[in-house]
């Protein structure tokens, strides 16, 4: 009996006649929560990024999406994290780039596990820039900020060091990507030097 079956399935989604007050209350609660969430999202997409009152309330950034991708001013530079070690005689090893962006491959359409690590460098640059407009001075308050500590933690623990390296220093550089032959890279930030707590070192 396909007709009856179809009718039964179609009516199953409707609340029974005389539904309880709790079911109605629950329905309106959902309307309220989702409606408010959508309304707040819409208000917070103000295109100039000057209105931040509501977004500041969402400290984790989980509740209010930011849909304004690559706008108003998109990133038009690559950012590079470079690391060097200070040796016992006070000299430094050459700068070495770490977390190099993977050259674009067709496989990235399906599979790109390194993308998040690459994005961390970009996020750290954006946040450090916001903290200190002139990033060439490394102030103490910057050194306890999340972006600074994120990079320092990484270059201390996951980047290979010179066997005699006593201290580590990192630098953030902006380049013109594929146009780098035509445009000089710019130093955005030079960290302090930090002791390497090495076993037996």
């Amino acid at each position, binding site marked *: 009996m396909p007709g009856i079956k179809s009718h039964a399935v179609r009516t199953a989604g409707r609340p029974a006649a005389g539904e309880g007050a709790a079911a109605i209350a629950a329905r309106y609660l959902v309307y309220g929560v989702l409606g408010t969430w959508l309304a707040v999202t819409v208000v917070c*997409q103000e295109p100039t*990024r000057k209105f931040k009152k509501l977004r500041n309330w969402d400290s984790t950034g*989980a509740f209010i999406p930011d849909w*304004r991708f690559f706008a108003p*001013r998109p990133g038009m530079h690559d950012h590079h994290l470079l690391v060097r070690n200070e040796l016992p005689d006070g000299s430094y090893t050459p700068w070495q780039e770490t977390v190099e962006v993977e050259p674009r491959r067709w496989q990235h359409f399906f599979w790109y596990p390194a993308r*998040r690590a690459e994005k961390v460098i970009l996020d750290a640059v954006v946040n450090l820039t916001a903290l200190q407009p002139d990033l060439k001075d490394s102030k103490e308050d910057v050194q306890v900020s999340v972006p600074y*500590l994120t990079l320092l933690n*990484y270059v201390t623990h996951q980047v290979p060091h010179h066997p005699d390296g006593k201290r580590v220093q990192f630098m953030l550089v902006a380049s013109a990507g594929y146009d780098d032959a035509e445009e000089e890279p710019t130093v955005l930030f030079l960290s302090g030097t930090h002791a390497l707590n090495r076993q037996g070192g």
Partner: protein
Amino acid sequence: MALVDFVPGDGTLSVDKALRETELLISAGIILSSLEALCRPQDVDDGGLMSWRIGRTRSKAMVSGRPGEALDKVFSAPGIHLLTSLRLTAATVTALPNGDRRAKAAAMTFLAVTNFLLQLRGSYGGDGSDHANIVVCTALAISKFFGHDEKVRNACTAFIAGQSVTSYFAAGLAKAISPYWRDGRAMRGIFRTRTYGEKHVGTLLKKYPLLAKAGGWGVWVGEMLFPLVLVAPRPFAAALIGTGTSFHAGNAAFMGLNRFLWSFSATYPSVIHHSKHLSRR
């Protein structure tokens, strides 16, 4: 057709078909995202770029007392790897055809809650696909608890569709007010980078500035037109959905934004369900 097994048949309400298709696409994206994360355990280790040891310093509440200890267990290795593995399992459960309804409700609720937890852990390395996962999974989880109430399930798809059209319009509007997007510098600038660009596309846009300008205009005009999918005549609405899918496929191929393809196309079944001329209602 294997897809027939995954998507409910003719006797099912349109809203439930839309929810199921949304569930399939978002689950596929979370499976991909979880596998990618599990391939790079070093990133979330204590010394990694997405270290909880650093992430937790954003708030005093996250480093002190019992909540801090609990978060340490969940967000530090090996807890974070277990959490990611459980998300992989939950997404597989929600993607599978048929199966126990309560198990699927529990799995989708787990995905919704852990989406928020992962944002709490840290936003570094995150992107718009994570936000799309949050809004979609939360709405899907809510819909699972209202199997008896079609109106609520329709509200859930309306919420997903609302977020979807808002996302495109907001992205388009923010570009429209930008001189970089209006004069072609944005397209040229983005595609010359190794991070979000592609060498051949970058060279082409550099050689033909008009193409860069047309491309920029095409992106923001297309994004701002997307909400018309809800009211436009069928051919135009279908073209907008097709353009949106192609846009994300292109972004995956040329910009390395592969997870966006899954998370944003997951909103399309809900958009179609609320489209005046595309809906199967």
